[in-house]
């Protein structure tokens, strides 16, 4: 039964309205969580005795850094599915995720370097984590550039997929770079196996913000995937029907 459902929604024409219904919920969730997270971050969490007020940037930095890696994996996953099973929708998902992933990576880099100035005395250092995060940004850009320079959407999907899959190797490098090389950058303080090593309020703030970014990403990706569906399927009957109905309204 569940399987049947999946196939049902794997078709762009059924997924399109479903996505339309989901968007407002995720948007609302993103706004709500962000409000809570920021409240915790700015008013509840105590001033750090080492880093002063500046550390509050962590509430943006860490969630975006997490999202940047996570979104890449998701993108590669959908791209691989599209390549293997020739399912249109999964390739469209991959294409829709890329810009958000790039944005998250950029934000992580930017907030990181804003923070680096007071902490390390430089906007940028060539540390392993920073470098691999920068590579991640280039991978996103490369993915988008490759797709943009191929006109045939099917070829673009498939070529992009190969690149995305090859690039996955970078994600574990980013994540473990702080363990493999001793660097300036902070090691993981949240992990599944150990108990967290930071103040509970800070942790909560971060987790809530992470969830907010999650919701935001889902909402944006859905909006974008809807646009892509319309663009690619504009010659199919159901899109024509949709337009006709839209015009009639």
């Amino acid at each position, binding site marked *: 039964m569940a399987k049947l459902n999946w196939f049902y929604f794997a078709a762009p024409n059924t997924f399109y309205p479903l996505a339309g219904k989901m968007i407002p919920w995720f948007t609302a969730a993103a706004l709500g969580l962000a409000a809570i997270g920021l409240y915790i971050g700015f008013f509840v969490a105590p001033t750090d005795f080492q880093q002063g007020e500046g550390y509050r940037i962590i509430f943006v930095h860490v969630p975006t850094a997490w999202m940047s890696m996570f979104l890449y994996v998701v993108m590669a996953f959908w791209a691989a599915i599209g390549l293997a099973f020739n399912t249109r929708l999964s390739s469209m998902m991959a294409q829709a995720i890329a810009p958000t992933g790039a944005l998250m990576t950029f934000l992580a880099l930017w907030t990181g370097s804003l923070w680096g100035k007071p902490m390390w005395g430089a906007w940028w250092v060539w540390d392993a984590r920073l470098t691999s995060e920068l590579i991640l940004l280039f991978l996103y850009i490369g993915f988008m550039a490759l797709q943009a320079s191929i*006109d*045939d959407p*099917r070829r673009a999907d498939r070529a992009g997929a190969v690149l995305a899959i090859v690039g996955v190797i970078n994600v574990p490098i980013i994540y473990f770079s702080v363990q493999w090389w001793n660097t300036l950058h902070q090691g993981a303080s949240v992990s599944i196996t150990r108990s967290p090593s930071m103040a509970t309020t800070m942790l909560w703030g971060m987790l809530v913000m992470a969830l907010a970014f999650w919701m935001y990403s889902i909402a944006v990706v859905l909006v974008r995937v809807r646009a892509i569906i319309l663009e690619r399927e504009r*010659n199919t009957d159901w899109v024509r029907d949709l337009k006709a109905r839209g015009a009639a309204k």
Partner: protein
Amino acid sequence: MLEAVNLECVRGERRLFRDVGFALAEGTLLEVVGPNGSGKTSLLRMVCGLLMPAAGEILWRGQGIRRLAEEYRGQLTYLGHHNAIKDDLSGVENLLFSETMAGGEATQKSAREALSRFGLAGFEDLPTRVLSQGQKRRVGLARLAFRARCRLWVLDEPFVALDVKAVRMIADLVANQVDSGGIVLLTTHQEVDVPVRNRQTLRLGHA
């Protein structure tokens, strides 16, 4: 033996054709005709497995060609708009290389013979870069001399740039292959008479 079922071809936003099908027994020539842009090249590339059809299927001896992969490709000889020869190599070198690639066996001697049969005596050792348009086409076509074993030939406008004599000779070669049990798919805009027993014609576009 070669079957196409309900093929549909979509390029960009244009549907070139749909529900195209044919079934070719051994020893048949299929002439694909139609005006410019009707999808002949696209159809031929689908048959080779270079282009994925938007819908439909191509079967060789009852099995999908994607699945057969190397087994099918061993039976196939394709000649497209390009000659697939290296400019910097001589005719002989080109021929020897392409035969090894195709898993066949050619020798210096047989390659030279083939080339001179194709009217290139005296040009065998020149880099093909300096050959004329029609001579290059001949070098590309010369590989057909070694491909009698391939049961399926797919030829996209083989007569382009050839002079009258060469056209005649290629037409005869094709006829020979068909009559000895091969299947040949062919497009051309010129009126060339290929004297075979079994022939089918597939019309694309509204000519």
